[in-house]
């Protein structure tokens, strides 16, 4: 049944900008402070106070716009979005409505099958976050923490260009990577610094018009985004299939139950009465300002990935993975610098393999890796100079990770140095052959498959330390009856 339907997804991503102070007041934005200790008179909306735009937030928004090749508005306007809620002290949120800072742009996303898809960005605008209402604690009371009120957000609105949950995830990951590259958002999803709303609809395959959409609010993990969309798509298809009709509404994803639930329908929705905020003048930017921001752009993930693929002969996929964060890319590049470009593939495999799985397993950021780039390049150097085999190196890596010692120290202490003395390897081969006369006879009678058996026996006897290439050559010679 799924095959008859086309899924249409658009995302509104909220990236909290990494400014030191709030967007319209001088209060700090640090996460986790005691409630209401980072809220001044402006944040509390005292009578008579006025907002003043934080230029750094504007700079960051422009930086994002330039990174996605979007049109930067020379003149943009802040508007008031009016609604009552206790964690919205002014009774309106300052946002942008008709003339956002960042206009149309686009982003290329690599899908699971390696295909590249361009997702349109409709706009990105600046706005302030609300505070938090806490409905817990003594009695029947609600509590309000306004530390977050006035934190700058960049809301990035996509075109309805995504056709599957996985595409939405790939797009969101791409934006996540980008904002961290640009150092405009810490990307911390647990703390809510990076979250999204997903607009989801379905339509019969081939239809021209979009179906009615539901908006799933406040998704703060890639997994929840994927699951929420999958659930919502199935719900809508089932609803339509059973003769029902999708209503335009806001829904909430419950990760415990893995379902979306209706929050409010369009009919109950607020009329936000947007109008230009008379306390803030229109923001005028000249080319000089825009160029000064452009000058601060780092090498972007796509540029870096293209360079990795070109200079180091990596596949587009591997290059993309290594550029998922600026730090990971830097780690990889320092390995390549130490080992030489000829060993880039080895370095890539290790970063994406052993290193990544250790980081994931222990939930450690690359910047806090227990094996530094210098340590890992020392280890890989021992593979390159054939002191140890790749297989032994994995054990050494584990030991480095858990004991925090250098590669050479572990190799020496554990006697893992690879056996490259032909005589020593030959004597082990001789012993193995003597101990397995039947297999030897079978091999010589034409059972070539038994070659692997002998390799395994020799490796077992040497504790895996025999140089694999040498072993291969010597064993072939011996088994065929040659050699000394």
């Amino acid at each position, binding site marked *: 049944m799924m095959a008859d339907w086309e899924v249409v997804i658009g995302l509104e991503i909220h990236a909290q900008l990494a400014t030191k102070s709030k967007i319209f007041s001088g209060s700090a934005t640090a996460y986790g402070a005691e409630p209401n200790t980072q809220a001044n008179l402006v944040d509390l909306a005292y009578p008579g106070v006025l907002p003043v735009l934080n230029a750094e937030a504007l700079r960051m928004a422009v930086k994002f716009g330039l990174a996605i090749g979007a049109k930067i508005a020379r003149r943009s306007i802040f508007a008031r979005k009016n609604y009552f809620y206790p964690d919205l002290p002014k009774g309106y949120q300052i946002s942008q409505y008709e003339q956002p800072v960042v206009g149309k742009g686009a982003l290329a996303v690599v899908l699971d099958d390696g295909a590249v898809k361009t997702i349109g960005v409709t706009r990105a605008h600046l706005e302030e976050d609300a505070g938090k209402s806490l409905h817990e604690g003594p009695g029947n009371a609600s509590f309000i923490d306004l530390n977050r009120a006035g934190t700058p957000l960049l809301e990035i609105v996509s075109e309805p260009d995504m056709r599957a949950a996985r595409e939405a995830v790939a797009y969101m990951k791409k934006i996540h990577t980008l904002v961290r590259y640009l150092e405009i958002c810490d990307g911390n999803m647990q703390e809510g610094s990076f979250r999204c709303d997903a607009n989801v609809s379905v339509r019969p395959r081939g239809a021209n018009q979009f179906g009615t959409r539901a908006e799933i609010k406040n998704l703060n993990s890639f997994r929840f985004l994927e699951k929420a969309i999958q659930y919502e798509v199935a719900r809508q298809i089932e609803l339509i299939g059973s003769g029902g009709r999708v209503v335009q509404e806001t829904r909430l994803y419950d990760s415990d139950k893995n379902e979306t639930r209706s929050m409010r329908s369009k009919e109950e929705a607020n009329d936000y009465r947007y109008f230009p905020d008379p*306390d803030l003048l229109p923001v005028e930017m000249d080319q000089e300002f825009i160029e000064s921001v452009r000058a601060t752009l780092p090498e972007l993930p796509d540029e870096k990935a293209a360079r990795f693929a070109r200079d180091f002969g990596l596949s587009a996929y591997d290059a993309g993975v290594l550029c998922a964060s600026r730090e990971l890319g830097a780690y990889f590049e320092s390995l390549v610098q130490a080992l030489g470009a000829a060993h880039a593939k080895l370095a890539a495999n290790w970063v994406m393999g052993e290193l990544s799985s250790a980081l994931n397993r222990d939930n450690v950021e690359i910047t806090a890796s227990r094996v530094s780039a210098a340590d890992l390049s020392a280890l890989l150097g021992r593979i390159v100079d054939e002191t140890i085999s790749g297989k032994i190196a994995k054990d050494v890596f584990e030991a480095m990770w858990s004991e925090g010692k250098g590669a050479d120290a572990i190799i020496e202490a554990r006697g893992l140095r690879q056996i490259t003395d032909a005589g020593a390897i030959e004597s082990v081969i001789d012993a193995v052959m003597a101990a397995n006369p039947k297999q030897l006879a079978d091999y010589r009678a034409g059972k070539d498959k038994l070659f692997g058996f002998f390799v395994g026996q020799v490796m077992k006897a040497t504790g895996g330390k025999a140089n694999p290439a040498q072993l291969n050559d010597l064993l072939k010679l011996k088994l065929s009856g040659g050699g000394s």
Partner: protein
Amino acid sequence: MLHNLSIGELADRLAARQISSVELTRHFLARIERFNPSLNALITLTGEQALASAAAADRRLAAGERGRLLGIPLIHKDIFCTDGVRTSCGSRILDNFIAPYDATVVTRIKAAGAVMLGKANMDEFAMGSSNETSFYGPVRNPWDRTRVPGGSSGGSAAAMGARLASFCTGTDTGGSIRQPAALTGVTGIKPTYGRVSRYGMVAFASSLDQAGVFARTAADAAAVLQVMAGFDPKDSTSVDAPVPDYPALLGEPLEGLRIGLLREFFEGLEARNAALIEEALGVFRSLGADTLEVSLPHLPLSVPTYYVVAPAECSSNLSRFDGVRYGYRCAEPKDLIDLYQRSRGEGFGAEVKRRIMTGTYVLSAGYYDAYYLKAQKVRRLITDDFRAAYQKVDLLIGPTTPTPAFGIGAKIDDPVTMYLNDIYTIGANLAGLPGMSVPCGFIDGLPMGLQMIGPHFSEARLLGAAHQFQRATRWHEHTPGGYE
């Protein structure tokens, strides 16, 4: 008597140590004690604090410091936040509100060494033209206590008319300084929008509100404005332009000054009112000015335009008064909606509610274009009309009000008639222009005002013209009977 001396004369006597600021302060406090009960011009008295400030000013004077306002007593409109002193804005909803900070206007006047005697009554949230909408009851006009003093700065105007301070502050959103100044026989100036900081001034309509001065004379107003004016980084709409030396420029000759007579102001003008204006024009001609008729074709649209724009902004600005963080909260709220509805329902008066509802309506979906957007377009046309007129003339002159002060209760039940009282003053607010009212005669024993409106940042020209008019006339020296 001290209360009839100009700020300049008082400053000279203070400097010569002929009087002390404490003596001067006691003199005004005694007048307040004597006259305020029948006028209701002040709603908060800060006598003790005033004497302490006066003593401090005396110490500064004794140390040889000199300043135009050092040691001079004043009254602030209760719309300005005053640290540690109740700031009610004439509303029940802020009846218990002690401001935790000073408005920029208050800070500047305080730094100059002026002495605050108390806070002046006003129409609730500056919405009104008669001072009858105050939670604290109507203010009475010292010229006839059965009549209104005008509004919204009615308390400041009445206090000035009765000589209860050397000067008073006020705010003017649609005529709230000029109209009451005219009706109480004092001099009032509303500067260019952006000339004086709005920070700490409780907002009514942010794009129209501007702080200004009530004084006995234009020269006194110049001295006070000199201190109040200037860029404030806390107000994004304040203008970063140098402040001219207003007192030094009062003597600029009027020879060749081109005065425009607004045809729209004189159509249907009551004969006695027209005669007073004509007489005033004669004075200006005798001082060397030329007069010519000009037309602002869109000016008749200013009242309906204003009553869309101002309520729209007020409906949003007043959302912060929700009973959650400060101000009035209803007893025993059942739930959040009940808290909002009753706190606001019980906290706001009828006129404020009328404007919040009007403003909410004109901003709502489906009506925005027809009302708010249309009003903004007309506002632009009115502004362009003024701009075109200033190609031909240096300032515009006409009546401040259609009639002298009306009786308390005469118009309060008829909002449209009340709104028409601002017909001559609103245009300057819509265009952000500076305007002044100076006494120009009497009708039935009640004072009338001559209004002057100049191009943006022409305060020096307005003050100079008013000063020279006052040197040639004696209207501003009249004091109401019993208050001499």
